[in-house]
């Protein structure tokens, strides 16, 4: 997929990857970021297409109010 200005979006992606990979470089097994099928989209374009789930508020899980799940047969 590509948006309104793929070359500019791609350049911005490269800069973003450099930053994301630079902050915790030596950390064991930490995530790696780079070029993929979404690199030709600006973040707002990516979000508008792929991040369309709406948040809901959920009750807090109260372990002691439940038979601890591990005891459920």
């Amino acid at each position, binding site marked *: *997929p590509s948006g309104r200005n793929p070359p500019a979006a791609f350049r911005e*992606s490269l800069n*973003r*990857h450099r930053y*994301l990979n630079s*902050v*915790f470089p030596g*950390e*064991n*097994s*930490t*995530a*790696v*970021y*780079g070029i*993929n*099928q*979404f*690199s030709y*989209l600006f*973040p707002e374009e*990516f*979000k508008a*297409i*792929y*991040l*369309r*789930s*709406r*948040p*809901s*508020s*959920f*009750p*807090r*899980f109260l*372990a002691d109010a439940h038979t*601890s*799940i*591990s005891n*459920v047969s």
Partner: protein
Amino acid sequence: LPLRFDWTDKHVVTPVRNQQTCGGCWAFTVVGAVESACAIKGQPLEALSVQQVIDCSYSNYGCNGGSPLNALNWLNKMQVKLVRDSEYPFKAQNGLCRYFSDSHSGFSIKGYSAYDFRDQEDEMAKALFTLGPLIVVVDAVSWQDYLGGIIQHHCSSGEANHAVLVTGFDKTGSTPYWIVRNSWGTSWGIDGCVHVKMGGNICGIAESVSAVFV
């Protein structure tokens, strides 16, 4: 609980799918949870219709967005029978809801649970182990650039915007992580999946957690 557990290894999780440019992650995740719950109960593992949920879940907006909780509520309240994907295939756009006779075979749910497991991700792991894959809604803005490894930074628990299915966890290494199945095809991430650090509610993964009962 074992140190490592993944429902995928039990062959009760259908293959990674691709939502293409349809904003229907919420539907893919709910259908994925129902497919696994049925398979865990001993029924054959088979792909069910995401398009049916996109077209018919009245309290959602199809490819323009939706919430897993609304879809679960619709499935449960209407006792909808999900038909096989082969009968109502995905077409990556909204369509008119197709209805089937009561005698038509399908898969319905008996209920669902929905909790915030923040600061209780061990309880969340127990829930996964006991109930099956979990539907979660995360903040996936930084997933645009993800290639692999364990996400443990740059992933705020800000506004939840993407629904995915947690199929397992792995606590054998120095950084424990959730194993998460996405719906962006197998060329994204780790064969379509992503690893998110356990503990600390990374990406908001523990805030909006649902499971289905069949």
